[in-house]
């Protein structure tokens, strides 16, 4: 059985309930946001380790803040990782299942590694000094390992021509799932290095955000902003190098260097690098560059995610696989359910984040103004309305189907 025939056989026969391109766009979008939080988790955890090791007031306070930020970042990374994991199974089902099953022991191990790392992070958050650094260091090692496993699964995924060889050993099926079959160091580094660039920009935002508080320590925030600007610039420089290294090890026939999304990524990446160079050269007030740097970083991450997807499409086109070949079984009802839930949920989510954002910027008790009160009540009303509508729909369908 050749590879294209195998892929066709593995493709789910039930088709997809909406246009595959929509799932692809959602996958890229959510994957980019997931990566942003993964980067933030790695970077803030690493700073927590360094801060605890260095000790002293300045680093000690930063380490505490970073450990706290890391706990929220990891949750964000998990939350935002669920969505692309879902969408990848819709449009790339043969690849995801085959790749993860070939190394199933590691795929399951990923869960326990992540849990150990995350649990340890809470211990790091509540402890200072050596104990704090040990727990944070353990978390960092676990998160790196988890990232490496995901990297391997993603890399095995685009090499279906090798799957059967990996699965077969001495003429029999090799079912232990304990082998990570292939990895690419430049590709992995391209995942890891941005952690420090993203965290650098996060520190600039941190410096900007807390400056508004009446109890803020201006010198500490100035120091954190400068540290962030330097980190962001240097890490982005290294990231550019790893990007070129990765490009050089890609299969020649993919000709990715001439792909428009690669070229666009290169231009945007260099533009961001130039801006970060300018920002870190300033003697003070690095927080003034925080928002443009954050916006630029977000654009570059989104673009890179799109470029990675374009690369995957080229990889898989070699085997005659295209997501548009999925059988389309349009289901307007469930599509409406999703988009009809997504929009109100964003309104509610924005309210929660607005409360968190505004209350964190004042030193004492924060009291909601009339607009925030109304937004809060509307958020609850939206959730109740959703439940009433869905319950009504459910009852109507249950009654209709009764006895059929």
């Amino acid at each position, binding site marked *: 059985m050749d590879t294209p025939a195998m892929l066709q056989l593995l493709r789910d026969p039930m088709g997809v309930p909406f246009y595959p391109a929509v799932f692809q766009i959602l996958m890229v979008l959510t994957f980019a946001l997931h990566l942003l939080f993964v980067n933030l988790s790695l970077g803030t955890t690493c700073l927590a380790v360094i801060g605890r090791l260095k000790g002293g007031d300045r680093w000690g306070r930063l380490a505490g803040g970073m450990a706290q930020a890391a706990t929220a970042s990891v949750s964000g990374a998990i939350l935002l990782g669920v969505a692309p994991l879902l969408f990848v199974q819709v449009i790339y089902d043969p690849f995801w299942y*085959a790749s993860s099953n070939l190394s199933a022991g590691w795929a399951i191990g990923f869960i326990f590694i992540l849990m150990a790392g995350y649990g340890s992070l809470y211990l790091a958050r509540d402890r200072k000094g050596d104990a704090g650094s040990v727990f944070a260091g353990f978390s960092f090692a676990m998160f790196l390992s988890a990232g490496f496993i995901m990297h391997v699964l993603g890399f095995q995924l685009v090499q279906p021509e090798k799957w059967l060889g990996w*699965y077969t050993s001495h003429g029999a099926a090799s079912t232990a799932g304990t082998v990570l079959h292939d990895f690419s160091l430049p590709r992995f580094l391209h995942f890891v290095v941005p952690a420090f660039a993203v965290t650098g920009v996060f520190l600039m935002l941190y410096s900007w955000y807390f400056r508004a508080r009446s109890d803020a320590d201006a010198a500490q925030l100035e120091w954190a902003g400068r540290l962030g600007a330097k980190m962001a610039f240097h890490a982005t420089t290294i990231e550019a190098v790893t990007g070129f290294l990765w490009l050089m090890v890609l299969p020649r026939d993919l000709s990715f260097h001439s792909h428009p999304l690669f070229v666009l990524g290169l231009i945007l990446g260099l533009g961001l690098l130039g801006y970060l160079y300018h920002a870190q050269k300033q003697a003070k007030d690095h927080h003034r560059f925080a928002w443009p740097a954050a916006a630029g970083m977000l654009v570059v991450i989104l673009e890179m995610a799109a470029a990675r997807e374009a690369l995957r499409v080229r990889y898989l086109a070699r085997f005659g696989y295209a997501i548009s070949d999925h059988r389309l079984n349009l289901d307007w009802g469930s599509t409406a359910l999703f988009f009809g839930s997504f929009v109100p949920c964003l309104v509610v989510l924005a309210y929660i984040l607005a409360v968190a954002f505004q209350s964190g910027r004042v030193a004492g008790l924060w009291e909601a103004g009339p607009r925030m009160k109304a937004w809060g009540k509307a958020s609850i009303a939206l959730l109740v309305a959703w439940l009433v509508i869905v319950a009504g729909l459910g009852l109507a369908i249950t009654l209709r189907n009764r006895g059929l």
Partner: protein
Amino acid sequence: MYPVWEVPGLTAGGVLALIATFHILPSHLSVSAMWLNLYLESKAYRENRPELLAFVRKYSRMLLIFAYVFGSITGVGIWFSASAAAPRALSGLIHNYVWGWATEWCFFLIEVAGIFTYYYTFDKVDRKTHLRIGWIFALGSWTTMVVIVGILTFMLTPGRWLVTGGFFDGFFNQTYWPQLFLRTTGMFAIAASYAVAVASRSEDERTRADVIRIASLWGLAGLALGTACFFWYRASLPEAARATFDVLLTPGLTRGMWVPIVLMAAYFAFLRLRPLTVGFTPALFAIAVLFVSIFSFERARELIRKPYLMPGFMYSNQIIGGELPAKGVAAETAAMNEKGILRFAPFVPDGLRVVTDANRLEAGRMVALIECSACHTLSPQGLRPLPQRVGSLGFTDADSLAGFIDGLGSYPYMPPFVGTEMEKKALAAYLISIAK
């Protein structure tokens, strides 16, 4: 059809079961805890009792860490282990219910942002805003259950979906409402058992007594209503599923479901009267007792779908045995019987695609991996081990066993053998070779 993952002493399905049942502890807590919190927080404000608020804060901290470290990650773990155990079934579920999962994810966004903001804004925001965040979390969190129950129950009782292929026909199936109410009422018993454990460490005697009394009442109500909903659920099952349930339900599982319920009812009733008598360790033990009941129920619930993963459509070994004309899907069994499972399945070593005298045992093992290993270990240790199962049947030669394999489909909980005559004989020869 995908590479098989063999787990020594267990099966990939066993790993899935362990992770999924553990996940119930934090996930049901996350859905239920905030309702108790809202009640207690409002009471604390109304009666101006800061020490009660201190309990709410501790309980929220436990919720944040336990539910959103271990709960979130084991939730992802269910997907990973389902990928390993039954990738085709998971794929089928996702290709039908992707928008359902995505909808649940929207509310998951609210849940996670909500719990972090709720926990970190105690005494930071005005009381009404704090309670509003709590209400949003409680509603958003419960809505994830409203969505998930539709997808879970579809996998066991797909209802009209088998005819129409329609999302909502499968979602609002005959067991949807009873199971939603069963989980909704049962979750209060779970919230209560955790609350007792957290409260048992409170140094303030009045707080400890008040919280434990209130939690006990919630616990008793949850157990009573949950039990009633269980019988509603059982009555809503299709006739065939109920028969399978009754045949396969072992006395151990039955006891596992009911004994802990009785014990927990006695525990809550006792604590209602003597709230200060419980320590932290017995309270943790009580959570474990409740978990035994949940675990037994979930295992029993899984029995219903045998011999299928998707009833009427996909067998336990992920071979599509039913038609789904609404989505243009035909059964695979005829093609597999004609061509041979070893030629049909992609992940088969080239030397085993055709059965010969030289490779008979290896080919038979490959057939067993594809058709049997989802439920049975091929080694003597572990879940439903084939060596013992075959040994207990008493066959001593491959031909007689092949005849038995021919009739597998007549057992209500076994999928039929699929493949050529040669493959059946190879399987029989292999099974005889490992029989104990």
